[in-house]
């Protein structure tokens, strides 16, 4: 390995290329993420079908019926999307980016490879144990105790690599992304440990405290790992794909302010009222970091909007960032007590969670995979046409999916808060919405097939088709 020239990233611009380093762990993390995306995706489609018409459950062969049932597919869907696809795409991207931003080789590549192996083991464990009914039954914290410990080990190894590399850095100033990753890999596991009560194999607290802790955890694993990680990734990719420097490093630091808001999930519930009001207050305050992000996004994109036509990766990122801004605003709206009273427990919330985890962070991850896989392999992506199909099927399908669920949620909320309408009628009224959701979900699924084929063929070294113009080859 020759490292004659070490690029020095200024705090404003990530360097175009870092020192040479072996990127096998990063690459396998990205591949694994793409592979695991399909399990929660399929589970989601099956659930959408079951909700559209419950009689389709009779199609499931008798021996499989205990495993292929809504109540067991739902934790599989959520956990594998979060801790399989998203987390592994994050981990691969982080391992790829940190050496480039610090000018130092990755702290321990063998450890990173062990990390890929263990993380796959974890996700495989989740994919097997959840349908078999091994669950702790707390949202986002369903994984059983041994898997909780394995998850912490995976986070820990990733943290060693991130911190180890950052501490050996050859540049004085750390770019915002590196500090985001340092925070995400240290504070994320802390939230995971407390939320999952890892010192107790049952993983649960008792009574009110369990509910309060559960929603502290749900909201803060989202903040500390998924959002902090995603912002670090976005602030790396935005300048890189637009060719513009990040508008403001100082504003980017304001991404971490919504730790205190978890209890807005429990409005009007049995919890203490002061806590609800408190969490609403802090939820409104998240307007500030959101405004800072919006400004940074729009100003960094300035003069580069036309590039979204050329680069599918930038398009995914730009649309993902716009959706992220909408997510934050929607989140604030949902924390208003009147609105919350109506939409809580409805399909609106399902739409909101898909906005956050699919339209925002998965879009970021598509951009990351499309940017880093060619870099790591040193060759162009296989098919521009399939990438276009991936983008449009996903965007259109997902938009229809989310709008459909939001409308469905408003209809449900309105019926329930009117009172006097038998509950069963409000269930039957959902059927058309569930049909639209199923069809939209199929479109999103078809998009992901295009995605997987592109990555598979690129990994196998099949020639790019159709041939790309030289300048666009690696974007």
């Amino acid at each position, binding site marked *: 390995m020759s490292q004659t020239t070490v690029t020095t990233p200024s705090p404003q611009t990530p360097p175009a290329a870092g020192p040479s380093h072996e990127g096998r762990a990063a690459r396998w993390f990205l591949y694994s993420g793409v592979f695991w995306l399909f399990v929660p995706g399929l589970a989601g489609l099956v659930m959408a079908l079951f909700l559209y018409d419950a009689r389709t459950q009779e199609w499931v062969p*008798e021996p499989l019926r205990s495993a292929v049932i809504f109540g067991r597919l739902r934790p599989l869907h959520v956990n594998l999307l979060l801790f399989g696809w998203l987390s592994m795409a994050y981990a691969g991207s982080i391992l790829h980016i940190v050496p480039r931003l610090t000018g130092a080789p990755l702290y321990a590549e063998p450890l990173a490879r062990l990390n890929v192996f263990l993380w796959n083991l974890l996700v495989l464990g989740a994919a097997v144990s959840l349908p078999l009914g091994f669950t702790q*039954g707390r949202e986002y914290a369903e994984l059983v105790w041994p898997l909780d410990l394995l998850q912490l080990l995976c986070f820990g190894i990733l943290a060693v690599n991130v911190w180890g590399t950052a501490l050996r850095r050859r540049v004085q100033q750390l770019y915002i992304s590196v500090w985001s990753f340092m925070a995400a890999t240290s504070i994320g596991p802390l939230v995971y440990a407390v939320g999952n009560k890892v010192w107790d194999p049952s993983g649960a607290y008792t*009574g009110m405290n369990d509910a309060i802790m559960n929603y502290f955890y749900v909201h803060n694993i989202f903040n500390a790992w998924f959002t902090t990680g995603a912002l670090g990734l976005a602030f790396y990719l935005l300048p890189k794909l637009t060719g513009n420097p990040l508008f403001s490093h100082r504003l980017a630091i304001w991404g971490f302010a919504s730790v*205190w808001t978890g209890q807005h999930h429990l409005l009007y519930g049995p919890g203490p009222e002061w*806590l609800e009001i408190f969490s609403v207050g802090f939820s409104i305050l998240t307007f500030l970091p959101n405004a800072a992000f919006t400004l940074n996004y729009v100003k960094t994109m300035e003069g580069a909007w036309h590039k979204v036509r050329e680069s599918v990766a930038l398009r995914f990122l730009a649309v993902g960032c716009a959706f992220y801004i909408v997510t934050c605003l929607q989140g604030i709206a949902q924390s208003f007590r009147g609105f919350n009273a109506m939409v809580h427990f409805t399909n609106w919330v399902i739409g909101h969670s898909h906005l956050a985890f699919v339209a925002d962070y998965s879009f970021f991850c598509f951009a990351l995979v499309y940017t880093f896989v060619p870099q790591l392999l040193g060759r162009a992506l296989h098919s521009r046409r399939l990438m276009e199909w991936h983008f449009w099927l996903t965007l259109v399908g997902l938009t229809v999916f989310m709008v459909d669920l939001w409308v469905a949620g408003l209809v449900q909320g309105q019926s329930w808060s009117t009172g006097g309408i038998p509950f069963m009628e409000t269930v039957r009224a959902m059927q058309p919405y569930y049909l639209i959701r199923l069809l939209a979900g199929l479109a999103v699924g078809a998009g992901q097939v295009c995605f997987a084929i592109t990555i598979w063929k690129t990994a196998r070294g099949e020639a790019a088709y159709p041939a790309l113009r030289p300048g666009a080859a690696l974007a």
Partner: protein
Amino acid sequence: MRPPSIRYLLFGSLLFLLAGMAVTVGLPALDEAPPSALAVRYTPQEERGRAIYLREGCGYCHTQQVRAVEVERGTVHVRGDIGPESAPGDYAFQKPVLWGTSRQGPDLSHVAGRPPGNSREWQLQHLAEPQRFNPGTVMPSFRHLPREELDALADYLMTLR
């Protein structure tokens, strides 16, 4: 003006997290509610049924939490039959709680008293054949569960008074 140093940022955010935890989790824990009249000390059989409820993911479609805003208004069959508002003390012996976040089906906080006649028998039949009671329901049949598990589940549902 230099951006703040990394140490400052990391310790700052850690501190912010810990303070947030102290206020939003720690403080409420100090103020633990005594068990209410609805709090149940489960028998081993009921506890077993509760574990089956959790294992089968009933809580992904059914909540166990009646909010203040829906008392007198929330409807399963007739206006207000959702039952009385849930109080912190109702959950005193539950580990974990099964509040749920989504209602594909109705709230079950007070489901035991809802069906007419022999409620336990109704629960058993409904678990096996939900379509017979509610055509068009999205609830799956749980006929595939062993009979003793269905019994335990029904015994647990009967604690939801």
